[in-house]
């Protein structure tokens, strides 16, 4: 117990309840702002420890946090297993390519395309969720698998017809003009306010990711969120308690898909180029790794998982290049395979020792400090 009592319902409904939590929030925000400046420092850390490399890893982790959390919302909370996850990343890339400032796009502003991606994702997501009304478990897994390949085909058809085999290029979006007055928003060498490079993208991605996560958290801590969990735990009882199971399942699919599609738009504009070969079925496994290692059935679990997934390879890369390993050439040759093996081991370790994942470790740490110096 924190020693702080909740005296009315309104206090209980707050997300950041205690003063330490509020302090932590402010400190966290300050650290988040300081982080890219730290990474920009020009120096060579000892032992060739990676420094610049973190920037890209963190940005990718921010983008994939949304997707991993959305996957958790669908599988962890609602109990619906869907392999159409990557399909919505593709849908986001396609929305960006058709409407946004891309090779053959209509040239609409990124800031318009981003929420539109969410709308498109929600509508298509609800359609993809339709099989979930009839089948569940492994059968739903198979039914949604088809969507993945249909999406790849769709992207390929668009690409071949409009752009050619080189793939779609996405042009850097611009900071909206009403934000130009902000002190840290400065024009680049050409006098433009283009968002490119890891440093600038970071400040775009942090608020968008936080917004998306807050969106999902708010859905989950409402009656709709309770209905999601009710359906996962016992769908028969849920329907007999007045929950419209069909509507709720489709809502879960729509919310989750909207989020993934938004992350798909972000991803395309961040990496600036996408082709039909950018998407493999492994994406679903990647997201599953993030979800399991990060923590099942929590939104922060998705965030932890995404950061684990993108930051550990940077560390592995560094370790591989240490003089210590110079004699073992196979480590260099099979670098990425070794990474995958380590992920596999990590999953097994998490499942055996900490099924709640990194989110569970985080909870334990918080409890440790809250109850200090007592152990319980």
């Amino acid at each position: 117990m924190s020693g702080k009592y909740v005296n009315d319902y309104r206090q209980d409904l707050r997300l950041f309840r205690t003063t330490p939590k509020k302090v932590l929030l402010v400190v966290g925000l300050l650290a988040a702002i300081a982080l890219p400046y730290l990474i920009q420092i020009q120096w060579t850390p000892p032992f060739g420890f990676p420094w610049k490399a973190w920037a890209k890893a963190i940005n990718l982790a921010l983008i994939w946090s949304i997707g991993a959390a959305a996957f958790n919302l669908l599988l962890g909370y609602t109990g619906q297993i869907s392999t159409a996850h990557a399909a919505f990343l593709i849908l986001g890339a396609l929305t960006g390519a058709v409407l946004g400032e891309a090779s053959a796009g209509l040239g609409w502003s990124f800031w318009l395309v981003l929420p539109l991606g969410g709308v498109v994702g929600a509508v298509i997501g609800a359609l993809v969720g339709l099989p979930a009304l009839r089948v569940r478990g492994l059968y739903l897994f198979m039914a949604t698998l088809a969507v993945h390949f249909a999406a790849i085909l769709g992207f390929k058809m668009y690409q071949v017809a409009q752009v050619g085999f080189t793939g779609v290029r996405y042009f850097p979006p611009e900071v909206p003009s009403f934000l130009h007055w902000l002190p840290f928003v400065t024009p680049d060498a050409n006098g433009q306010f283009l968002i490119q490079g890891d440093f600038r993208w970071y400040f775009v991605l942090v608020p968008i990711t936080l917004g998306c996560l807050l969106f999902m958290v708010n859905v989950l801590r409402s009656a709709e969120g309770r209905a999601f969990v009710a359906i996962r735990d016992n769908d028969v009882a849920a329907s007999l308690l007045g929950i419209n199971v069909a509507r709720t399942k489709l809502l879960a699919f729509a919310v989750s898909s909207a989020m993934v599609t938004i992350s798909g738009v972000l991803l395309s504009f961040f990496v600036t180029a996408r082709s039909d070969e950018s998407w493999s079925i492994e994406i679903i496994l990647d997201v599953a790794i993030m979800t399991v290692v990060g923590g099942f059935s929590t939104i922060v679990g998705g965030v932890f998982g995404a950061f684990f997934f993108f930051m550990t390879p940077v560390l592995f890369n560094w370790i591989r290049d240490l003089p210590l390993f110079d004699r073992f050439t196979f480590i260099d040759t099979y670098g990425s395979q070794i990474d995958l093996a380590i992920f596999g081991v990590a999953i097994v370790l998490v499942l055996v020792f900490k099924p709640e994942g990194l989110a569970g470790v985080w909870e334990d740490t918080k409890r440790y400090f809250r109850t200090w110096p007592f152990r319980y």
Partner: protein
Amino acid sequence: MPLLETQGLTKVFGGLHAIDDLDLHIEEGEIVSVIGPNGAGKTTFFNLVSGMIQPDSGKILFEGIDLVGLAPHQILELGIARTFQNVRLFQNMTVLENAMVGQHARTRSGPIRAILRTPGFRAEEEAIRRKAEEALAFFGTRLIGYRLEQPAFVLSYANRRRLEIARAMATEPKLLLLDEPTAGMNPRETLELTELIARLRDEKGFTICLIEHDMRVVRGVSDRVICLDYGRKIAEGTYHEVATNERVIEAYLGTKAVEGV
């Protein structure tokens, strides 16, 4: 007009008439017990009324509205809640959340209001919580206090049954269907629940229909007893009338092999 009335209700599973041309009625404010040997169709009757399965023919009228063809959540909205013979709680949700789900049909929430967390939404969440706690408090201190935040799977068997009733109460029903509420309870818990069922009607104003095998409970609470056998109503009346009815005794114990033995 009776609160619930069935007319010629029939449900056939393959060649088996689980419910066979059943006419019965439940008046508002009554406590009616449905008894009968195993396989008599008691739970099938509950499943039909709550919309889990659809009848092959006949009508189920609730306040004059035919329930046939309605989905379970629509029937609950009209005011019929039930519990299950094999407890069906939301195992991983807390006790409080289980009861809060009960309020689902009585509130309008909606995803947009939830995301924006409008003042109306917050007020509604508060009301949901208050009503859920109210329902849980009906069972004394067994389900409130520190238990509120416990996941349902840690509860004792008797407490799970209580929670299931509380969850059904939180849906603010007019008619409460209890499927073997005392199954698996010890004699003291059974006695306690018998009193609670009477209080449910007297204090909360629910009409109650229960399936029960424990005859002490049936005798203790019922205004009227209906006995089913092979999907048909074979007896109806006060506990005493039904308990001494020859057809009921025959259904439970069988006929004598030889006259006069």
